[in-house]
């Protein structure tokens, strides 16, 4: 047994969830603008992610930052790796790279039920910023 069960639990959560966001509040009820924007970016994709609210216990944030060497919240991890905080996620979202990082299909296929004659051009890679 480790002497730091909380840090072990955080590490386990990062390892066991392909996409996991540590944030203030929840995706449904974010308690900070940075956390709100980051979870909204994730929610805009058709992908599942785990979310951990760090507010109930200040030790969560302390241990998380010690583990990740990252001082601020939110923190997004994909496949066990720190992708970044709010700024990096916003940057990757704006450039379309976030879809790649998440391993989700960029919305470029025309849906089967699209009416004939619909514009066949793929959706632009620069996804509109709906976060501001």
């Amino acid at each position, binding site marked *: 047994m480790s002497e730091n069960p909380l840090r072990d639990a955080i590490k386990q959560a990062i390892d066991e969830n392909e996409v996991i966001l540590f944030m203030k509040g929840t995706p449904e009820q974010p308690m900070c603008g*940075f956390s709100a924007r980051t979870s909204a970016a994730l929610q805009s994709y058709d992908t599942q992610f785990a979310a951990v609210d760090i507010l109930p216990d200040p030790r969560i944030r302390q241990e998380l930052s010690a583990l990740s*060497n*990252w*001082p*601020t919240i939110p923190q997004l991890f994909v496949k066990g790796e*720190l*992708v*970044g*905080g*709010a*700024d*990096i996620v916003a*940057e*990757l979202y704006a450039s379309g790279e976030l879809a790649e990082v998440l391993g989700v299909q960029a919305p470029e296929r025309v849906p089967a039920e699209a009416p004939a004659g619909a514009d066949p051009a793929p959706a632009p890679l620069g996804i509109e910023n709906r976060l501001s």
Partner: protein
Amino acid sequence: MPTADELKQRIETAIPGATASVESPDDVHFSARVAAPAFAGKSLVQQHRMVYDIFTGELGSAIHALSLKTEVT
């Protein structure tokens, strides 16, 4: 209380060749754009860490928030 100008100076001193522009409406929330040759070959996470590391212990206290945009020059 830190000022935007103080943050700019500290970033430019700490990261060789860096050019920073820092804005703050209240000397508590800061927004910085940092361009530096030292960012070359580094991931965004590593680039942001280089800036965060300058302010270890101050982020979350004196510096409530530091929003970053980094760029390789």
